[in-house]
């Protein structure tokens, strides 16, 4: 039985065989040591070229075959079903197809197995076997043809090295394009859903409305919940929590980076830096319950002691803990840029009789500043995207307030609450999540672009 995995392994084996065949052929063509010198490339390149021509088209055919196979077979099986079943509505038909597939792979089926189903499943299996066999034949033919052609064209004049190099280049380009297209794909899917949302709720209401209560009537006759989709309170909550986080993270992170890179001796640094990095490795959910169970009650008690009105879940608690979470992020990025400032620069200042703090303040920090700013911007986009801590410690209510002791909510938290649980996927309530996601995406994208730009500009200075 030619299963796909066997075929895949066979391709790999054929590729290595092709490599040796190509190499051997090149050596044979060259004949002698002097002949080798006349060959355009070294024998390994002829081997590589043969392997690539043998393997890459075969792998492409193999993967596209795997992608389309089940669709085509299903189509054929459905076409072979009795009219009575084929005329079922689309969703019922889907169930039947599912049953057939389950039957094929031996899973338990929801409906009773009747004769039509059984024969349909057999039909499916039969088609699958044919498909695999023909795939094997096609691939074998292709690889053999490739090897045969290469055997013929390997000659002293064949520029194998250049061809191998350019094939490698194209493989690399293909890989990076995958990453780019994935990003574009995510952006587009979010964008389309967001557009569907904006068809129901106007974009101005979304961007400038002051009330957020995304409760829609589930049934048309339900009363009293029309929903309000003004996202300003949500944005404001995100801004406030991120701002609190940055107020904590930037000074602490930056100053500790300065201490570590300029003042601490090597032994202390060797211990402290990994410790800081452990801080970065703690899962955010742990920070979340630290915020909810330790910091929030602490703030509440202190606040009550001072006669303030503090909610049990507050922006302050979430922001503080988020700031702690981001400290290692800021400090390790700043540490890197501070270390990148050439020692000669410090020597210049010391040589003029500057003190350590003068040198740090007037020479090292200005030189490292663009890099630090870049790092801080990256940290901000991290803060904006953070969800878990806020879900656990800041609450869910979308209050429009400037008081950090009150409950607020953020974009990410709203996305989570909108999409958790059973939802209809075309109600404004769920679509609102995509609109929020789009805004989040754009905001972090802009921040990252600025940050990368700033960091790059800084790099140029020393090159």
């Amino acid at each position, binding site marked *: 039985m030619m299963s796909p995995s066997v075929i895949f392994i066979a391709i790999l084996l054929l590729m290595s065989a092709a490599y040796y065949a190509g190499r051997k052929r090149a050596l044979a063509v060259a004949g002698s040591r002097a002949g080798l010198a006349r060959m355009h490339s070294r024998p390994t390149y002829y081997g590589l070229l043969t392997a690539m021509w043998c393997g890459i088209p075969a792998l492409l055919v193999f993967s596209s075959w795997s992608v389309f196979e089940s669709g085509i077979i299903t189509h054929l099986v459905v076409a072979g079903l009795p009219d009575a079943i084929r005329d079922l509505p689309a969703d019922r038909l889907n169930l039947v197809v599912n049953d057939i597939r389950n039957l094929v792979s031996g899973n338990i089926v929801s409906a009773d197995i009747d004769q039509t189903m059984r024969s349909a499943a057999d039909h499916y299996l039969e088609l699958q076997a044919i498909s695999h066999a023909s795939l094997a034949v096609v691939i074998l033919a292709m690889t053999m043809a490739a090897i045969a052609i290469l055997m013929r064209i390997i000659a002293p004049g064949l520029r194998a090295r250049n061809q191998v190099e350019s094939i490698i280049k194209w493989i690399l380009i293909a890989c990076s394009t995958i990453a780019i297209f994935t990003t574009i794909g995510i952006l587009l899917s979010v964008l389309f859903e967001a557009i569907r949302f904006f068809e129901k709720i106007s974009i101005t209401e979304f961007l400038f409305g002051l009330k957020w209560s995304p409760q829609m009537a589930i049934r048309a006759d339900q009363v009293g919940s029309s929903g309000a989709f003004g996202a300003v309170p949500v944005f404001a909550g995100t801004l406030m929590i991120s701002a609190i986080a940055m107020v904590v993270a930037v000074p602490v992170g930056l100053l500790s980076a300065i201490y570590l890179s300029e003042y601490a001796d*090597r032994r202390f640094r060797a211990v402290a830096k990994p410790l800081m990095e452990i801080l970065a490795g703690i899962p955010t959910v742990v920070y979340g319950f630290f915020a909810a169970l330790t910091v929030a009650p602490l703030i509440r008690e202190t606040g009550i002691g001072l006669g303030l009105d503090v909610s049990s879940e507050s922006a302050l608690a979430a922001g503080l803990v988020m700031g702690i979470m981001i400290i290692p992020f800021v400090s390790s990025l700043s540490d890197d840029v501070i270390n990148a400032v050439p020692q000669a620069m410090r*020597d210049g200042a010391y040589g003029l*009789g500057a003190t350590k703090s003068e040198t740090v303040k007037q020479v090292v920090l200005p030189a490292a500043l663009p890099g630090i700013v870049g790092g801080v911007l990256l940290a901000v986009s991290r803060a904006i995207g953070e969800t878990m801590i806020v879900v656990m410690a800041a609450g869910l209510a979308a209050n429009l307030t400037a008081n950090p002791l009150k409950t607020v909510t953020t974009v990410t938290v709203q996305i989570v609450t909108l999409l958790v649980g059973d939802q209809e996927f075309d109600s404004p309530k769920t679509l609102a999540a995509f609109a929020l996601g789009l805004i989040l995406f754009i905001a972090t994208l802009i921040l990252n672009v600025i940050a990368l730009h700033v960091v790059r500009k800084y790099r140029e200075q020393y090159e």
Partner: protein
Amino acid sequence: MDAAANFEELTVGIENTQTASTGPAKAKSGRILFDRDSRDTVGEPFVEDARMTCRDVNVYYGDKQAIKDVSLDIGRNEVIAMIGPSGCGKSTFLRCLNRMNDTIDTCRVTGQITLDGIDVYGKDIDVVPLRAQVGMVFQKPNPFPKSIYDNVAYGPRIHGLAQNRAELDDIVETSLRKAGLWEEVKDRMDQPGTGLSGGQQQRLCIARTIAVSPEVILMDEPCSALDPIATAIIEDLIDELKQQYSIAIVTHSMQQASRVSQRTAYFHLGDLIEVGDTAQIFTTPRHQLTQDYITGRFG
């Protein structure tokens, strides 16, 4: 970097076979040369009325010894040249004199170095005023990523040498003029110092150092990237500074050493091999290694 250094040595070698061709008769005529294996300092390392004194200075980078038992004085109003093959420890020795080696974790200095009779490695010595007094021009130009003006004004600012902006402007201008850079940069004082050419940066760093009026100036190959005209300006500057200050200059150019210095010290693999009057060192070296080096037979 290395290629450049090699090239310089090469040209130096050629030049010196020429200069040496006037004198080898002396060398051959039975003058006693110290053997190649001898590592004791030949000549007179001490002067009366010394500005700085070094006694039995050893410098280690980790386990590796870079300077071995060097004793040397730097006199008042004198220019002392330090020459020697690449890697022999000239920069290392220079950096001991204003404790720049403190900034290198692995570096350890033993022995005694004094400035006007005060031990610069003493317990209660503050390196900040020391370095303002003993200024340094580094081997690699290292302008700050600030404007040209701020580069030169940096030292005077941190030491409060100017009462007001006009005085500061004045210090900046005179320093740049002395370093022969003023005409080239006077219209672009607010542009970054890092944007200057290598030779301009080198002169900027010289201007930056003399702006704080140090009393001893340590110059590590200050003219390595300069054309003959700029080199002449710097050499004039050195002559002028000598009237008031003491200067130690590291150079790979023996013409430069003989033009600007009164005394010359030859280093070899961490040892101070020979010190003496510049004229004597270049005409009648007494140590075989010195002679090999100045006649280009080194290596």
